[in-house]
């Protein structure tokens, strides 16, 4: 069924394996990862609860011209403990919408491909949903 060959003066080993050959669970055990490795990249919410503004999921929203406004709005939203999450942050989100309007090409809602807004809103949703 499966077989092996050696090419290139024995340097390169080749194996042809069928689905069955690879079906059973692997015996390789990965090393345990540290709970919090400071050198690894992190998701949106850091283990200490703060927001990782460099998360690729934010698509550069925190870096652009509306960066500070976005941070204010999102931090408020993140810290909001009321029933309707973000209810008290309406003024911040208002300011954010106004800022977005100033840069339609960057934050325009229609164009999906490069839109950081969509990425950010989905990031916000994920942020809420991930257990802390």
């Amino acid at each position, binding site marked *: 069924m499966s077989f092996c060959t050696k090419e290139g003066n024995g340097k390169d080993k*080749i*194996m042809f394996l069928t689905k069955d050959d690879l079906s059973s669970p692997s015996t390789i055990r990965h090393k345990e990862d540290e709970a919090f490795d400071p050198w690894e990249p992190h998701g949106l919410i850091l283990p200490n609860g703060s927001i990782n503004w*460099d998360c690729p999921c934010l698509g550069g929203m925190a870096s652009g011209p509306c960066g500070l406004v976005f941070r204010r709005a999102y931090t408020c939203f993140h810290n909001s403990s009321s029933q309707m999450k973000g209810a008290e942050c309406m003024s911040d989100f208002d300011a954010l919408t106004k800022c977005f309007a100033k840069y339609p090409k960057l934050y325009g809602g229609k164009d999906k491909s490069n839109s950081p807004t969509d990425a950010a809103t989905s990031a916000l949703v994920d942020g809420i949903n991930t257990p802390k």
Partner: protein
Amino acid sequence: MQTSHLTRLASIQHFNLIKRSLTRPTGPVLRKLIASEASPTTNYVRSTCEFRFASTTTSSSNDGQNSHDEEQKKKNITNLMYLAGAVTGLGAIYTIFQNRKSSKEKQDAVSAYDAKQLKSQHADDKLDASKKTLVEKVGDLQDRKLLAEEEQPEELNKTDLTPVIPSFAQYLIIGGGTAALSAFKSIRAHDATAKVLVISSEKYYPYMRPPLSKDVWYTDDNLLNQHMFKQWNGQEKSLFFFDNEFYADVKTLNDEENGGVGVVLGRKVVNLDLKTSVAKLDNGWEISFEKCLIATGGQPKSLKVFQTASNRLKSKLTLYRGIDDFFALKKVVDSGADVTIIGGGFLGSELACSLAHRATENDKRGNPSGKITQLMPETGNISKVLPEYLSKWATGRVRDEGANVLTNVELIGASVVQDGKVSLSYIDPQNPKKTSYITCDHVVVAVGIEPNTDLAKSAGLEVDPDQGGFLVNAELQARHNVWVAGDAASFYDINLGRRRVEHYDHAIVSGKLAGENMTGAHKPYWHQSTFWSDLGPKVGFEAIGLTDSQLQTVAVYAKGKPTDEEQKRDSEGNREQQDVVPEATANDLKHKLPESKGNLDKDDYSKGVVFYLKENKVVGIVLWNVFNRIAIARKIIKDQQEITNFQELAKLFNIHQD
């Protein structure tokens, strides 16, 4: 009113000038007059002076010597005084004449002013008359405004005085490519009000390079003209990382309360002085900085045979790298030209597939199409990464796309022949006794890049003699305030040793890391970057770590019918890196090998995993036509465990799965 005042002023100034012009020579002249009046011997002195000259030849007796000497001295002094007087007198006369002339000019100016004033007074009088028409009234107002503007000296405008490029940068980034972009994104993320100044030699704002050898060749003109391209999955993206709106105005960057990123295009840093932390541009402008990132990337290499090329040959040569190279080459290809690509690496192979595909499509539509050839000295495509057997198999797939691939070819000459075509000469190993020729209309050189380390000399930075590039530590630092990222960085990888990586994802990862460290972090290179390649729509792979084909390799290929998979790309144009294998959708078939090719035999390398080993540890992995499993590969490399059973290791990848 004002008129008389000014004339008075003018006359006073006039008088002062005359006075000044006279006082200088006046002094000695007056003194002389006084002296001459005091001494009755003026005329006597004059005559004696003549006498003195006449009598110098005759010797005087000793007796009358003393008195003679005294007289001599007096005569000398008076002679000098006469001389001085004459000179100053002449000077006085000259100055008087000059002043007369300028005072005349002044008088003209004053009278002209007076005339204007009279005119305005006249205009004022005219305005009082209510019987004027509106047009006339407006005309008069304009006249008065013009006059008012002329009267007042121009106010110094702050914006006029502000230079176009600032002379100070909080964060200076040298280079405007992928690493630079990733860095400034990261800097701004960690330092919310950072002011970043980017100096780029490109004509364009930061853009993505990978699509230039792949996606753009499959995109329609209407999208291309907007600098956009169509991805495999149909999604349209811009070549530019950000719309121009993202960038701040360079001129006012340092005044922005919330900071921003300003990009200077078309400028190069030619000198970096780290003693004073000053960067000098090619136009002489100097910028002092707090922190600096060098992200200068590399320049395409050429070949010896082209170094002595005539201008005619040079016009048929492309060193492919940027957006402009793409548009120029597209024109050539669409004109039906025969194109030869020299180089068997990633760029050369991808271009061979893309160009061959485009030529085929052009032909199908009845448009002009040429022959696409690829030449390389190696035995197969991407031979520096793929083990020989796989590299040869990949060549077969490039040939399937329609390109004529000639391997084991060493170019020995190039010239332009009679009919304007390019003739390339080489030695065919199968016919080594004679020189073989290939003719084409255009040549693309894709033989690698030379890292841009010109600044090393002026900055006193170390360059890696083996791999090239600036030598930096594991935290990408060259000096306390200088970092290097991207193609130009030779850095220390804690797991894999010192390396220099020329891939896109490495530019993203290293740029991000350098940016973060510039804002105060101290993180080493740890998250392993990846790379990928697509040899046309049918063959593609993702890879991670040290994938040197000279290393020992163990590969596991799927035996049985290959299944289809869809790859995803994230916002930065990278393959999305997930652990979960998504369900393949029937419509998005990307890498499907036609069954008719009869690949279901022993030499079917259609799907598999290649492990690269150093001392029985996996240091690199190539996922051959297997997608979205890069995270598993990364974990294996990170663990650095000794592996003996590769079947077990291969199980982790589930290569048969859809």
